[in-house]
């Protein structure tokens, strides 16, 4: 799993490449939280363009970031989910909390 963090205004874009499982999540959580702690970030956009696998560990990591960000009035968004990832989002009812967009452009317009 490769993770790139970029900023657009007050939104942190988390660009992921690879498989989002327990092992990957443990490594990326800290990277994101360090940014949240030291920079003025309001929203997080998880870009799933390069994610070909996700299990429930991915859900837990996203919900954890949602807790942090929403406590300060920010939003967590997701974009470019493949149908597999989308099915897991739906099973967990994640879309009530985390709006899903078909592209990064649409998501940033909605942030």
């Amino acid at each position, binding site marked *: 799993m490769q993770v790139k963090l970029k900023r657009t205004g007050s939104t942190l874009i988390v660009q992921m490449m690879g*498989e989002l*499982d*327990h*092992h990957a*999540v*443990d490594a990326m*959580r800290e990277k994101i939280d360090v940014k949240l702690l030291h920079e003025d970030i309001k929203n997080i956009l998880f870009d799933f363009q390069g994610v070909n*696998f996700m*299990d*429930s*560990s991915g*859900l*837990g*990591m996203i*919900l*954890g970031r949602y807790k942090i960000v929403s406590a300060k009035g920010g939003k967590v968004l997701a974009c470019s989910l493949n149908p*597999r990832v989308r099915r*897991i989002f739906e*099973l*967990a009812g994640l879309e009530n909390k985390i709006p899903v967009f078909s592209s990064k452009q649409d998501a940033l317009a909605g942030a």
Partner: protein
Amino acid sequence: MDNYMRLEIPSKSQNEAFARVVVAAFAAQVDPTIDEISDVKTAVSEAVTNAVIHGYENGPGTIVIAATLEGSRLEVTIIDYGVGIADIEKAREPLYTSKPELERSGMGFTIMENFMDSCHVVSEPGKGTTVTLVKTFSRADDTEA
């Protein structure tokens, strides 16, 4: 039985990907669809991750993954000799997790149940847990032109 495999790995998070890929490769010989293979990969990942996080609480231990193929029926068994589950019914409830502090979503068993035909759990506190996952494939080789 047409074929079988048995894999023994130490309880380490980097082995989760290895385990699910091995089972997917084993199942691939009966030509499941890409979606069916993804279902198996995800369900195996959940069971192995549970053995690592809950069974052995991120400490040392041995995980055994055994699988059989009979025609287009795959049966995968994931075994740990860890802490075990006291209340299996409760553990299987959607969104239930005993480790919210580790940001677990409580969706592992729900995913196993949804992505496989069946998910059977046998467990004894202090002894360990055995999860048996079954899926019969639609035989993509019969339907694809």
